[in-house]
C-alpha cells in the first residue's frame, strides 16, 4: 500500500474549489429566508439615550437586547461583552439593534437614529485604567545579569493593528428548526459558537446545531467573532420563525470585527562585549480594544515568545493587555507572538549594530539549543532547530556576501530568527480535553472531528494520518463536515494544533481501529460485528508540566523554528521599499502534506510582508477610517517577491509522524526580517508598518565607532543618536575569568 503521509496527495476539497461548486455561506439559501442588517454605534463611548426607528417597520423583524432569551453576552473568557449593547456602548461599530426583512432593499432603506450621551473615550493604551490581564515571567536575577553586562541596549518597538482580510467576509445562515436552531457559517470553531449560542439563547446543547460551511479564509478572524454574528442571526431567526442570512459587506467586516492587537514592547538588554545576552528586561503592552475577548491568551503567548529564540540566564518579562474604546481585538495568526518576536529580533539587530557584530554571529551565539532551558524553565528537546534553520537560510540566501556587496547601495538584506510554540499555551490543551472519532464505513472510514478546513488543508492532512495509521488507501478516508450534531469537540482550529494535537488524536483512533479490524475489511467487519466508532481524548505528553500561577514549566509541547532572509530594494525618489526575495528555512517536525506546508509558509510570508510594509488601520475617533479594500492595502501579485522555501524536519516525539505545527509560525518572522533589511540600508526604523512615509522620516542609524568608547562620550552620543545605550555600572569583579574565557571559547566553536 502506498503511504500518503509526506506525499503530495490530491487535496480532499480541490475539485469543488476549482469548479465553483464549493458552498460558502452566501451560496446557501432556504425557502422563506430573511436578510439581516446590524445597526451599530457611531460613537466610541457613551450611554444610549434613545433608539429611534424612522422607517415603516411593516414586515421587519427587530431585535434588541431586551429580546435575548438567555444571557446577553458573547461567551468567551471574561463575561464582559454583550451580544447587543443595551445601555452603554464601549466602541464604535458596537452592535445595538438587529433588523431582518425579506427584501434586502427595504433593509438598506431602514433609517435608525441613536441618541447618545457621549463619554470621554480612552484611545491610548498607555493611559488606560483597565487591565484585562497581566503576566510576569521571571528567571534568574536581573540585577545580577546587568552587573555582568558590558553594554546595555534599550529600545522601544511598535506594531499596529492588522485586518485579517479573508477574501470571504463573515456570514451566517440561521435556521430555526427542531425546537432550536441550526446555524451554517463561515467559522473556525463550531463548538465555540455552539457554547456561545446555548448561553445567549438559553437553549440546551442538543437544540443548537452549528455546521461549518466552506470557509473562505480565517487566519484567526473567524475564531471568536463568529459567536457574535451567529448570535445575531439566531436571535432574528428565533424571533421571526424564519431562516435568516446575515452576511457582512467588506466595509462592515473591517469596521466591526476583530483585529490584531497593537503593541508597544520595550527591551532593556545587558550584553557582554562579545555578544552574549546576560540580562533581558522586557515590557509588553498590548491594546485589547473595548472587551476582553481572547486578550489574556494573546498576551500570554506574546510574553512566552518575548525573549525570541534566545537563551539568557536572567530574564524578566512584564506584560499587560489593556482596554481602549476601540473595537475589540482578537485572534490573528501568531496570536501575540508576532508582536513580541518583532521587537526581539529588531532589538537583536540593534545589539549587533551597537557591538559591531555580524547579525548572523550574534544569533548563533545566543540561539537556544537542544538541552537549553527557556525563560519558564522548559528544557528543549533534540528537535530544537534554531541553528539548523539559521544556517540553512543564511547559506541558501548567500546572506553574508549580499550584505557585504550591497553596503552603500539601495539594496538590503535582513535576517530574523524565530520560533513558535504549537498547541495551546500551558495547560490549555488539558483544559480543552479535545476529542476526535473515527467511524468505520463500508468503504473505509469517516473522520469525525470539529477541526475546520479554512484553506490550510486540514481535511487532507487528517485523512493522510488516518490512512497510514489504519493501513488503508488515502481515498478510503472521508472527512465529515464539522457539524456539532455529528462530531465531537476537538477544540478550536487555532494555535497551530490541528495537525499536531487533533491529528494525534486521530492517529490513536486509527491505531486502535486497526487492531480491532484485524484482517477484516471494513465491510466484513461491519457485517460481522456491526457499527464501530472509536473516540480518543487528549492526553498530555508525559512530563509536560505547567503552572498557571507561577508561569513556569513547559509552555508548549513543541516549538517550530524558522529563519527568514529577506531582500529589499529602496527607491530614494519615493522612499518605497519593495521586497525582492524571501529565503526561508522552517522546521516543522514533519511535513505531512508538503504542498500544504509550503502553501502555509508562502501565504504566511505574504501576509507578513503586508504587515511589515503596507497594512495600516487608520483610526479616527476610535473607528477604522480606511475600511475599504481600496484604502486598506494588502499585497497583490506585484507586491510579493519570489519565495524560496526550505522545509526542515526534526521530528517531535509526540506529534503524529513527528509533526509539529505550521499555520502561524511563517507569519512571525517576516516583519523583523524586513525591518532589519531596511536597517541595513541605514534607516533607524523600529515600527511596523514601515510605510514610505515612515521611512522618509526615519533618522539615520547612529554610525561610526562601534567599539566601546569611554563612558561619558558614549552616553552623550548615544543620547544624540537616540540609541539608548548605557554603560553598565562597573564593579570590581574582573571581566575575564577562567570560566568567562571558557564560555567565550565554547560560543565560538
Amino acid at each position: 500500500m502506498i503511504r500518503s503521509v509526506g506525499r503530495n496527495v490530491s487535496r480532499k476539497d480541490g475539485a469543488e474549489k476549482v469548479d465553483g461548486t464549493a458552498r460558502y455561506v452566501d451560496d446557501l439559501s432556504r425557502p422563506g429566508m430573511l436578510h439581516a442588517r446590524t445597526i451599530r454605534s457611531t460613537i466610541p463611548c457613551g450611554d444610549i439615550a434613545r433608539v429611534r426607528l424612522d422607517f415603516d417597520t411593516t414586515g421587519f423583524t427587530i431585535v434588541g437586547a431586551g429580546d435575548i432569551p438567555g444571557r446577553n453576552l458573547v461567551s468567551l473568557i471574561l463575561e464582559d461583552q454583550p451580544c447587543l449593547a443595551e445601555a452603554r456602548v464601549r466602541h464604535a461599530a458596537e452592535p445595538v439593534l438587529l433588523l431582518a426583512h425579506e427584501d434586502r432593499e427595504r433593509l438598506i432603506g431602514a433609517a435608525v437614529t441613536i441618541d447618545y450621551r457621549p463619554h470621554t473615550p480612552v484611545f491610548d493604551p498607555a493611559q488606560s485604567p483597565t487591565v484585562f490581564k497581566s503576566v510576569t515571567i521571571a528567571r534568574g536575577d536581573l540585577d545580577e545579569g546587568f552587573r555582568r553586562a558590558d553594554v546595555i541596549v534599550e529600545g522601544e518597538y511598535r506594531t499596529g493593528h492588522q485586518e485579517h482580510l479573508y477574501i470571504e467576509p463573515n456570514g451566517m445562515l440561521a435556521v430555526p428548526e427542531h425546537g432550536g436552531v441550526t446555524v451554517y457559517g463561515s467559522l473556525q470553531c463550531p463548538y465555540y459558537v455552539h457554547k456561545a449560542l446555548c448561553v445567549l439563547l438559553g437553549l440546551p446543547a442538543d437544540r443548537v446545531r452549528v455546521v461549518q460551511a466552506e470557509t473562505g479564509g480565517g487566519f484567526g478572524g473567524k475564531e471568536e467573532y463568529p459567536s457574535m454574528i451567529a448570535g445575531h442571526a439566531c436571535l432574528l431567526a428565533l424571533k421571526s420563525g424564519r431562516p435568516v442570512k446575515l452576511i457582512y459587506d467588506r466595509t462592515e467586516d473591517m469596521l466591526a470585527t476583530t483585529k490584531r492587537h497593537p503593541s508597544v514592547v520595550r527591551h532593556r538588554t545587558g550584553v557582554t562585549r562579545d555578544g552574549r545576552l546576560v540580562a533581558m528586561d522586557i515590557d509588553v503592552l498590548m491594546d485589547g480594544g473595548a472587551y476582553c475577548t481572547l486578550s489574556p491568551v494573546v498576551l500570554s503567548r506574546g510574553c512566552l515568545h518575548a525573549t525570541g529564540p534566545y537563551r539568557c540566564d536572567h530574564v524578566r518579562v512584564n506584560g499587560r493587555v489593556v482596554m481602549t474604546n476601540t473595537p475589540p481585538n482578537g485572534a490573528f495568526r501568531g496570536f501575540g507572538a508576532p508582536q513580541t518576536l518583532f521587537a526581539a529580533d529588531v532589538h537583536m539587530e540593534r545589539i549587533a549594530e551597537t557591538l559591531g557584530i555580524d547579525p548572523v554571529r550574534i544569533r548563533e551565539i545566543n540561539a537556544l539549543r537542544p538541552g537549553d532551558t527557556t525563560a519558564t524553565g522548559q528544557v528543549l528537546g533534540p528537535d530544537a532547530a534554531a541553528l539548523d534553520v539559521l544556517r540553512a537560510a543564511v547559506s541558501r540566501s548567500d546572506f553574508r556576501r549580499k550584505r557585504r556587496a550591497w553596503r552603500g547601495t539601495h539594496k538590503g538584506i535582513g535576517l530574523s530568527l524565530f520560533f513558535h510554540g504549537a498547541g495551546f499555551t500551558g495547560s490549555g490543551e488539558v483544559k480543552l480535553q479535545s476529542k476526535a472519532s473515527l467511524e468505520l464505513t463500508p468503504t473505509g472510514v469517516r473522520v469525525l472531528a470539529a477541526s475546520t478546513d479554512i484553506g490550510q488543508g486540514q481535511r487532507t492532512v487528517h485523512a493522510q494520518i488516518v490512512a497510514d495509521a489504519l493501513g488503508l488507501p488515502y481515498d478510503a478516508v472521508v472527512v465529515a463536515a464539522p457539524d456539532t450534531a455529528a462530531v465531537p469537540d476537538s477544540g478550536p482550529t487555532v494555535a497551530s494544533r490541528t495537525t499536531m494535537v487533533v491529528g494525534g488524536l486521530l492517529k490513536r483512533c486509527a491505531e486502535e481501529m486497526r487492531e480491532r479490524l484485524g484482517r477484516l475489511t471494513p465491510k466484513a467487519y461491519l457485517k460481522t460485528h456491526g457499527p464501530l466508532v472509536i473516540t480518543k481524548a487528549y492526553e498530555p505528553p508525559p512530563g509536560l508540566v505547567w503552572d498557571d500561577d507561577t508561569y513556569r514549566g513547559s509552555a508548549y509541547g513543541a516549538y517550530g523554528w524558522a529563519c527568514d532572509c529577506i531582500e529589499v530594494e529602496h527607491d530614494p525618489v519615493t522612499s518605497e521599499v519593495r521586497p525582492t526575495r524571501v529565503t526561508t528555512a522552517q522546521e516543522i517536525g514533519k511535513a505531512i502534506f508538503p504542498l500544504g506546508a509550503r502553501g502555509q509558509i508562502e501565504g504566511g510570508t505574504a501576509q507578513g510582508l503586508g504587515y511589515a510594509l503596507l497594512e495600516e488601520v487608520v483610526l479616527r475617533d476610535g473607528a477604522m477610517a480606511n475600511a475599504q479594500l481600496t484604502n486598506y492595502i494588502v499585497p497583490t501579485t506585484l507586491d510579493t517577491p519570489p519565495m524560496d522555501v526550505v522545509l526542515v524536519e526534526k521530528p517531535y516525539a509526540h506529534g503524529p509522524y513527528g509533526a509539529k505545527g505550521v499555520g502561524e509560525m511563517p507569519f512571525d518572522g517576516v516583519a523583523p526580517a524586513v525591518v532589519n533589511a531596511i536597517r541595513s540600508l541605514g534607516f533607524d526604523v523600529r515600527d511596523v508598518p514601515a510605510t514610505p512615509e515612515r521611512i522618509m522620516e526615519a533618522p539615520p542609524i547612529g554610525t561610526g565607532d562601534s567599539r566601546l568608547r569611554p563612558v561619558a562620550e558614549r552616553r552623550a552620543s548615544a543620547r544624540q543618536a537616540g540609541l539608548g545605550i548605557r554603560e553598565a555600572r562597573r564593579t570590581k569583579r574582573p571581566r575575564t575569568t577562567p570560566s568567562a574565557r571558557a564560555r567565550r571559547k565554547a560560543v565560538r566553536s
Partner: protein
Amino acid sequence: MRTALSPLTLRQPRSLAHALRLLRDEGPLTPLAGCTDVFVGLNFGTLGDRRFLNLWPLDQLRGIERRAGVLRIGALTTYTEIIASAVVGRHLPMLVAASREIGAVQVQNRGTLGGNIANGSPAGDTLPVLAAAEALVELRSADWTRKVPFTAFYTGYRVSVRRSDELVTAIEFPEVAGAQWFRKVGTRAAQSISKVVMAGVRAARPRIALGSVAPTVVRVPRTEEALAAGATIAEAQAILQEEIHPIDDIRSTASYRRRVAANLLAQFWNGSD
C-alpha cells in the same frame, strides 16, 4: 451594496444623437461608461444619482485615429485599448504608461478615458497626461459641439465646465514635441490610488502636470518657466512647493507628497528613470 438598485432607471439610447436628446430633454441623467467608479459609489451608498444613461453600446464614442498630426481618442476607449494601440504607443506613450498603472486588468478592460475625465477625481491617473499634452476635450450636446482645452476643463474639486446635457465624446491631442514622462506613486504596485502622479514633457519649455496634490489636476507654470529659464533643480523644486497644495489624508501625508513631488521633478528633469 448599500444602495437599492431596483428603483434605479437605465435609459438605453439607440445612438449618440438619441443619447444627447435624452440628456437634453429627460435629464438629469448620469451617463454610464465602464462603471468602474459609479458602481463603487453605489456600493458604498455615497452616490445619490438615480437615473442613468447607458453609453456602453455607442460605438461612435470609440476609436483611435490620427489625422493631420492630431490624435483623436473616443471617450469610450478603454485603457486596454489604449495600451494595445500602436498609434498611441508611438505618439503618446505617456498615456499608455498611465493606462497601465490604473487598477489592474479587469478595471482596464472596462474603465474609459472619457470616464476618467468626467469623474474628475484629483487622483485620476490619465489627467496629468492630458494636462501636459494640452489635450482638447470634445463636448457635444444635442445642439452643438465644442472643444475645451483640458487645462481649462476643471473649475474646482470634481467640478468641470461640462453641462449636464453634454457628453465628453472624444479627446484630441496635438503633436507633443519633447520627451514624454510619467510616473505614478501609489499605495502599492497595482490596484492603487495615487499619492502623487506626474506627467511631463521635457523640452526647452517643459510641461509638467501633477495629480493628487490639489483639488484638481494642476499644471505648474511657474516651475515650468523657471526650468525653461535655466533655474537649478533646487530652485525649481522650491517653486514647485508653492504651486502644489497637498493634504494629509488616509493614504498619505502632505509632507510626503511634497518631498516626492520634488523628487519626481528632479527625476523627470534629469532624464533619469
